[in-house]
């Protein structure tokens, strides 16, 4: 705290982490297209929205760090949940008309987000059914950063 003003803890994604998020996000976006049988040419994505989502996740993590004791930090699952939430909320993926008839296109952005954070932060197998259910939850129902984080925490804890 400086001059009576409270401050959030210092925290930011390193350049390497930013680079990994961006490159792997695009890979998983194309993978999600493959899962649902959507052609990549029917999808566009916004680099700007992707960057804004990651910046917002940084603020979320700083807030979570502030709420915890400095010696214990934030779990891998909560970081995964925070980024998955932001990547599902910002307007990153845009569909051309040819994609509108695909019955799963509403899950594309969320599946890409979920696969990305599982790989980067959880680093454990999460069954495909659970990945799909969280993607649906993020897309059509409600899950905030920390409830999505609890989902991933459970798999980290299970693996030991």
């Amino acid at each position: 705290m400086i001059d009576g003003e409270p401050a959030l803890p210092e925290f930011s994604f390193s350049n390497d982490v930013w680079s990994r998020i961006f490159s792997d996000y695009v890979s998983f976006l194309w993978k999600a297209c493959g899962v649902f049988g959507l052609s990549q040419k029917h999808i566009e994505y916004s680099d700007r929205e992707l960057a804004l989502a990651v910046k917002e996740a940084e603020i979320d993590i700083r807030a979570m760090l502030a709420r915890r004791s400095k010696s214990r930090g934030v779990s891998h699952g909560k970081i995964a949940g925070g980024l998955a939430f932001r990547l599902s909320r910002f307007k990153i993926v845009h569909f051309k008309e040819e994609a509108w008839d695909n019955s799963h296109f509403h899950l594309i952005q969320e599946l890409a987000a979920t696969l990305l954070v599982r790989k980067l932060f959880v680093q454990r197998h999460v069954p495909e059914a659970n990945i799909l259910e969280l993607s649906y939850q993020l897309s059509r129902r409600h899950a905030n950063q920390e409830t999505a984080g609890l989902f991933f925490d459970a798999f980290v804890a299970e693996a030991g």
Partner: protein
Amino acid sequence: MDNPQLLAESIERMMKYRETRGEVCLNHGIRTSEELDALVSKAPKDDDVDVNAYRRLLGIPTE
């Protein structure tokens, strides 16, 4: 949140409340940017997504 100052003040109020209630979150790990960097550096480079496993669950013909 658009106003980091308001967010920080909100957290400070919650921390004062928590001083009387104890730690709530039991899952911990990453404390610094460097620790997160080290975690991500260990993430595998290869892609382990089984497209057909997802397709079977969704009733989509497999490749």
